[in-house]
């Protein structure tokens, strides 16, 4: 838990770069800043980065092709920042190899939460060999697209989820077959810093059940465990 991730922030606007760096440092991260893609290779030789925050609108080499280049060489997680927020732009970014996508203007807290989620995904994938950090997970015919943040039922129909519900579902999918206490779920989703409470986990679970269970009153996928926790029963595979 005292893991201090080393984040590389590639953003050409100096002030935005400095502000992001400052915020992340205030939240237990080591940060290196770069104004564009030129020095990334040499930086990566001398540093081991846990995650790269990459602005797409860069002078010189286009951020998307830079992302693709980085992805070819390594598995380092990449979160892209951009002013364009349409679905087609998100899809392109994710196809280029990004792990997540934020539109400007964004809340720095949201950025931090996404960084933590992606890092957690990577670590979970490394520790639990069964779940690779793939973008798309599936269980019982349902598909969870972690990049586009979409849930689709077995028929392919998209089921809307709030941000918090999606986070919770992601966490459940990453640890199937394990009993998770409310505490753990709160920690794993937004963290206490965001102000989440145990009770809200119950509300989120009940909303999720209403959306994905065949019979929400007799849940089969998200089971309540008497000692005060929940268990995600389906087997999960990555695509």
């Amino acid at each position: 838990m005292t893991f201090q991730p080393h984040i590389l922030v590639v953003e050409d606007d100096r002030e935005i770069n400095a502000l992001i760096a400052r915020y992340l440092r205030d939240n237990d991260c080591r940060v290196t800043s770069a104004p564009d893609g030129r020095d990334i290779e040499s930086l990566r030789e001398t540093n081991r980065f846990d995650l790269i925050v990459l602005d797409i609108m860069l002078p010189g080499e286009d951020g998307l092709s830079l992302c693709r280049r980085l992805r070819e060489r390594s598995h380092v997680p990449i979160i892209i920042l951009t002013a364009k927020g349409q679905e087609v732009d998100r899809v392109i970014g994710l196809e280029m190899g990004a792990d997540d996508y934020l539109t400007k203007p964004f809340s720095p807290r949201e950025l931090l939460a996404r960084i933590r989620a992606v890092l957690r995904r990577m670590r979970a994938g490394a520790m639990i060999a069964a779940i690779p950090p793939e973008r798309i997970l599936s269980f019982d015919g349902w598909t969870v697209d972690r990049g586009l943040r979409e849930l689709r039922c077995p028929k392919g129909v998209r089921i809307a989820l709030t941000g918090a519900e999606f986070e919770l579902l992601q966490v459940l999918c990453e640890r199937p077959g394990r009993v998770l206490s409310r505490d753990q779920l709160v920690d794993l989703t937004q963290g206490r810093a965001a102000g989440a409470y145990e009770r809200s986990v119950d509300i989120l679970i009940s909303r999720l059940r209403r959306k994905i269970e065949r019979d929400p009153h007799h849940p089969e996928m998200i089971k309540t465990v008497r000692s005060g926790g929940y268990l995600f029963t389906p087997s999960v595979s990555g695509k």
Partner: protein
Amino acid sequence: MIRPLRAFLPDRIGVQIALLIVASLVVIHLVIGAFLFWNRNELQRRPPPGPAGEVASAIRLLTAVPKADRPLLMQQLRNAFPRVDLADGTELAAETIQRDRRADFLRRDLGPQFQVAVHGSGASDGQNNRMTIRLPDGDILTAGLALESPPPFLGPVIATLMFIFVSISLLALWAARALAAPLRRFVNAAEAFSPDVSQAPVPEQGPFEIRAAAKALNRLTHRIKGLIEDRTRLLAAMGHDLRTPITRMRLRSEFIEDHGLRGQMLRDLDQMRRMIDAALTHLRERRSREAKTGLDIAVLLQTVCEEFRDLGGDVRYEGPAHLAVSGWPDDLQRAFSNLIDNALRYAGRATVRLSSIPQGVRIDVEDNGPGIPHADKPRMLEPFTRGDDARGMNDTTGFGLGLSIANSVARAHDGGLLLLDADPAGLLVRIELPA
């Protein structure tokens, strides 16, 4: 005099052309009829072609020859005029048929010294009738009247009617194809014009004037699309560029120690962000988009309602737990968020109802607020129009785009939006979408 007449003239090209034909034919017939009428005496004097004329000629010849030579002449006349079957007669038979044109003609032509009688079976077709003519010096001649071969058509009147019918049909067909059809294509193209839908240009075919008009319409469409695209690109670029300074301010605000001040900065920045999002969405709504996808509209509505409830709004959902439709989920979510936001701001309580209808689905967003007066309803769908015309945006977060965006989203889905009055008071926004 001309103006009131206009009211009686037909509207359509095809009918106008048809009337023109009929009028010309009527005039022609009147002229011909007048000519015939004035010259009827002359005309009646001419012999009808055929047997009557031959009989008249035969009788004149016989009369001119002395009685002794008549039998020989008779032989020759029989050979010359085989049709009329000349023969000697013995007595003037009683006339059994009064009105025979040819007998009348002979009486007129030969004069009163000759007596003419027609007798026969009385069949109206003229067969088996024989004509008996008594020459002034007493000799009697008979002639058979063969059936006059009927005129090729049933009469000139019917021939004219056929001609009118055929020519009107042909001309109407031509008018329809060469004139009315291209004009209808223009109308359809102009009506269907929309800057974000690419449609086939109007075909530049047909008569010269039609081609010229088609070319002009196509060029105009092209120009308009170009203008709109330029304007949209400019506004979109402005919107995007504003995001960078707003991002900077947003990040800076995170470090403001004074909580009150920070809260105010964040609220204003959020308002600016939403304003840009709304304007860019409005601009984007007009352009072609990605493919539709299947989505659960019931879950989407419930999710939006829950999000507002989490912020303390009084929103309730009534409807099925699940219902699948086809569409663009993000746009639908934005549209309904806008409508519920409006409802909460102007009324304080909102009810969202989802139901299936034969053509698809119906979503009603109802509030118990002041509603919108009937006369103002059309105006409210225009962008940047709000119920209270107050321009101040101090504590309000609406920019007047909510209804307009919801309307564009509904239309983009081939559905529609209606503004109705809630019972007993308030506004009911009804959106219907095809399944």
